[in-house]
């Protein structure tokens, strides 16, 4: 991937393993955000092959799938200008899920994230930590295959962090492939099963503590091998 001819990275392989929490680190400007947005189908790479269930697709062909099955969470989540409950219902409404079912799934998500009390609050008036939890609930209610968190944990107080860790772990245990971009090594100890570094040279290196790399056979995870491009 490159921006205006400045080569950013050339990743050979980026595998999403269900039920695994992967930490993605790298210096400021290494391209973590860029990589995650490509994987979520939000940003067009120069070149990428997306492998889903063993079949290869171009990024463009895979984009609808990526947008549906991969969810990207911004560092500062955007809250739609409405209530917390309606924010959580947003994705379900896009799927045209019947009202009654939407309601049931939203209240389940509210309970799951401990937001019941805030259900009718204007989402814009929440604190940073509460917004994070809304964003997680809004994602989980869609049962995605992959969840990408972009430095979502910086700037939270210890308690909010613990709550967020807990929610992330629960999604991992529900077989979601979670990737967290972060500079925070404390996280690695608490959350990460796998640790990848996006190096300055623009490669993705595995720095997992002890590679228990029994290659995952879960077929549903898309293997994305984004952007390769000769630098200029």
């Amino acid at each position, binding site marked *: 991937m490159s921006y205006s001819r400045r080569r950013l990275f050339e990743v050979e392989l980026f595998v999403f393993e269900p039920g695994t929490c992967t930490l993605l680190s790298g210096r400021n400007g290494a391209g973590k955000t860029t990589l995650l*947005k490509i994987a*979520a*189908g*939000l940003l067009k790479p120069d070149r990428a092959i997306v492998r889903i269930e063993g079949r290869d697709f171009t990024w463009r062909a895979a984009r609808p799938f990526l*947008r*549906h099955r*991969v*969810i*990207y969470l*911004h560092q*500062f*989540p*955007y809250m*739609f*200008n409405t209530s917390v409950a309606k924010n959580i219902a*947003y*994705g379900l409404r*896009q*799927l045209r899920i019947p009202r009654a079912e939407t309601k049931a799934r939203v209240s389940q998500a509210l309970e799951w994230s401990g937001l019941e009390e805030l259900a009718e609050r204007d989402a*814009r008036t929440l604190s940073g930590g509460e917004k994070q939890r809304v964003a997680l609930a*809004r*994602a989980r209610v*869609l049962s995605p295959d992959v969840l990408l968190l972009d430095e979502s944990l910086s700037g939270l107080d210890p308690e909010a962090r613990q709550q967020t860790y807990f929610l992330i772990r629960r999604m991992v245990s529900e077989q979601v492939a979670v990737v967290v971009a972060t500079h925070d090594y404390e996280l690695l100890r608490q959350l990460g099963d796998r640790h990848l570094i996006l190096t300055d040279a623009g490669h993705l290196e595995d720095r997992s503590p002890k590679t228990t790399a029994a290659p995952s056979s879960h077929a549903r995870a898309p293997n994305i091998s984004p952007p390769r491009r000769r630098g200029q």
Partner: protein
Amino acid sequence: MNEIVTATERAIGLLISGDPGLWAIIGISFSVSLRAILIATPFALAVALLLTLGHFYGRRLLIAVFNASMAVPAVVVGLSIYLLLSRSGPFGDLKLLFTQSAMVIGQILLAFPLLVAMAHSALQAAERSAWETALTLGARPWRALFTLMYEVRFALIAAIIAGFARIIAEVGCSMMVGGNILNYTRNITTAIALETSKGEFAQGIALGLVLLALALTLNLLLNLMQGKGELA
């Protein structure tokens, strides 16, 4: 001094008695300006969306051009249209000069840059993350566009009100391309100019009061909308 007082008294009398000539003029103003704003708004919104989300060469220049063209005086717009529509002009065969259509065209051109510039700054305030959040939660691009506009709906309504306020109070362009024909192209502003020059102050003052009330109401609405946008 006495003259002004009696003229004002007669003006109020005209308004209250529902003088048909007076209200016909007011009707023409509304009919022309409403048509102009209704036609201009969808195109201006499309352009503003393109300027907000598009990545194309010359985007910044185009934004600057729209901002700058808000300053083009109404008479100059009127002059240009006059030259284009006059019998020897390139569109002379359409025989549009001195018709309501010519006034509508002029007012569209006057409102357009204002609508684009205000809608663009409204959409920009919603941030790119609003758009990305909608997409990653599975919204189709069209739905995501709708979400984006809905998020900044008050600011967009404010843009439309501001555009309407500009063109209904505009005199230079209507005078030049409309021709001030009674019961056809004579609107509030051109009637005021004419009646006053004839020394018929009562009707001029009556129409002036209507215009003043309208301007104050529109500005009040505008402030209300902008206030709502901020509160969000």
